[in-house]
């Protein structure tokens, strides 16, 4: 990065929050602070919902995911349109009618205080940890590749978000997200254009896609019924539906976005906008990864994208082994490069498997040397491409894209964590009947506290798998139970508070046990957790808590 890149980066990441602070200046009531005075239009809600979901992991890891495994990850989003329509039809009017600040308030009104607290508690655990991952994920990659201090990077992104989110509440989150997502769109579109432009001039776009398909990167839809496969049409439709329904219907970080709408219509259109835009958007991000993969078929890629880790291993007396692997890798690349246009799909896949095997051996040596990184090498693919092959100015813009994504997702999360803690715990349990301004200040302080927790988690995080999956796995473990609470509330009118409370606890324990013992696609835990709450609550209501109904 040169001076121009730093100017673009700093100007971009500071200008948006400063504009947001100017737009939200003035003293606020609790309603304004938590719901943004409900003047926000559907376009802003739609972009805000989109920005909340699409964190930095989406833009850093997803192209790398396509680089490694193809674009099949798109199927994870197939359940989302159905879920969003369900939220529009069922959740939005109920939350609107009851005028709740948080989704868990509804559980308190439908069941009892302990069920409300359980729902809010599960949310706080899951989101508190996820906020840490959201900050940590880009920080570890940017600090490794740019030589920045890790904790400084974490504090730079985290500190700025804490400051403006605590100050401006829901309205500033929505306003800043609108501009942050626009910057993200512009940056990713430019990166896509450059990736395609840097391919050989004699290769048409159609031929480019054919070549990527020949190398197994463009299988978007897979109807396989094998439950061991992580991404299939069916796991996407069913598991993805429950994940998205939990996320949009029962996760306060999203509920708060559409509760800020100027009307029910605005909330619904904002959500429906996401129902139609999400799949094409994710497709283009994954296709960008496939284009980068193709680019690196013509231009030799590094044997290991996390170069600082590689160089540490070289410095730790593993240089001769790695040099040997590098020469094997160069030889396979040269053969693959020569065969690219004329060879059959099988031949290319075989050569690609050889190159992958050498990369795996490199990773093993890095692990043996103690230079093993805390994240998947695929997460470094996109940012390596940006740093090495994009012109100056664009590099700064793309780093700003990563920061914008981090800030937009983290701001929504902190806003929701602070709100849920204040409204669901502080106000009913610690300080009922205080003046309105007292709760605004309490929510601001709790937002800051959660920001510090997220930074703490980020500072001590050790990721074990691909960053994009770490976030989704964490969500899938908790979301099923939370969604189950809401579905029982909506559809099983005979079930009371105690039955659903203990059913959710049992379901959560079941999911945790299954997670540690099975190796099925994590998306299924959303379905299992949710169905378990529904089943257990009916059984408990008709057995253990039968008298409570009669009483």
């Amino acid at each position, binding site marked *: 990065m040169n001076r121009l890149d730093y100017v673009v980066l700093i100007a971009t990441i500071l200008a948006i929050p400063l504009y947001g602070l100017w737009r939200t200046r003035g003293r606020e009531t609790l309603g304004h602070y938590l719901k943004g005075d409900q003047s926000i239009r559907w376009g802003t809600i739609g972009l805000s919902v989109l920005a909340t979901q699409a964190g930095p992991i989406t833009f850093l890891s997803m192209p790398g995911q396509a680089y490694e495994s193809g674009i099949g990850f798109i199927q994870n989003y197939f359940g989302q349109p159905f879920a969003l*329509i369900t939220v529009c039809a069922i959740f939005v009017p109920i939350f609107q009618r009851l005028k709740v600040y948080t989704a868990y308030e509804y559980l308190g009104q439908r069941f009892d205080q302990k069920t409300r607290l359980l729902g809010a508690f599960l949310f706080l655990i899951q989101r508190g940890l996820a906020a840490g991952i959201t900050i940590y994920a880009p920080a570890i990659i940017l600090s490794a590749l740019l030589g920045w201090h890790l904790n400084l990077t974490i504090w730079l992104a985290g500190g700025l978000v804490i400051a403006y989110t605590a100050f401006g509440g829901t309205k500033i989150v929505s306003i800043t997200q609108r501009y942050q997502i626009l910057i993200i769109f512009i940056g990713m579109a430019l990166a896509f254009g450059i990736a395609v432009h840097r391919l050989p001039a004699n290769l048409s776009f159609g031929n480019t896609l054919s070549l990527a*398909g020949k190398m197994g990167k*463009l299988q978007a839809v897979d109807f396989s019924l094998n439950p061991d496969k992580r991404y299939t049409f069916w796991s996407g439709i069913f598991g993805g539906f429950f994940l998205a329904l939990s996320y949009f219907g029962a996760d306060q970080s999203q509920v708060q976005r559409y509760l800020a709408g100027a009307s*029910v219509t605005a909330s*619904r259109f904002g959500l*429906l906008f996401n*129902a139609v835009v999400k799949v094409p958007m994710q497709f283009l991000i994954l296709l960008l990864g496939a284009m980068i993969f193709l680019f690196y078929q013509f231009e030799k890629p590094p044997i290991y994208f996390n170069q600082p880790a590689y160089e540490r291993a070289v410095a730790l007396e593993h240089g001769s082994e790695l040099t040997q692997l590098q020469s094997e890798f160069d030889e396979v690349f040269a053969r693959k490069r020569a065969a690219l246009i004329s060879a059959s799909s099988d031949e290319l896949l075989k050569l690609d498997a050889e190159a992958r095997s050498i990369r795996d051996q490199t990773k093993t040596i890095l692990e043996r040397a103690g230079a093993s990184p805390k994240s998947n090498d695929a997460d470094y693919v996109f940012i390596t491409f940006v740093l090495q092959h994009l012109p100056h100015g664009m590099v700064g813009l793309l780093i700003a894209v990563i920061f914008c994504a981090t800030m937009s997702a983290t701001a929504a999360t902190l806003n929701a964590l602070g709100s849920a803690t204040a409204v669901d715990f502080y106000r009913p349990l610690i300080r009922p009947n205080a003046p309105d301004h007292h709760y605004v200040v309490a929510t601001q302080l709790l937002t800051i506290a959660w920001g510090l927790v997220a930074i703490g988690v980020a500072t001590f995080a050790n990721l074990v798998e691909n960053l994009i999956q770490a976030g989704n796995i964490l969500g899938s473990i908790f979301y099923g139970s939370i969604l189950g609470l809401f579905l029982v509330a909506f559809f099983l009118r005979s079930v009371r508070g105690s039955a659903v409370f203990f059913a959710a606890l049992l379901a959560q324990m079941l999911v945790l046990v299954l997670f540690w013992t099975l190796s099925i696609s994590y998306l299924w835990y959303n379905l299992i957790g949710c169905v378990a709450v529904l089943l257990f609550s009916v059984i408990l209501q008709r057995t253990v808590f039968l008298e409570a109904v009669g009483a």
Partner: protein
Amino acid sequence: MISNDPPPLFGSWRRAYCFALGVFAIEIALLYVFTVRFS
């Protein structure tokens, strides 16, 4: 939220939901054609 919302753009919400699902179905069909064509 304001209770007296203006009438929805598509005449009724059912039609709006059908429209969104229709767009989604087209997206899936295009992705399937894309998969068949390029893999």
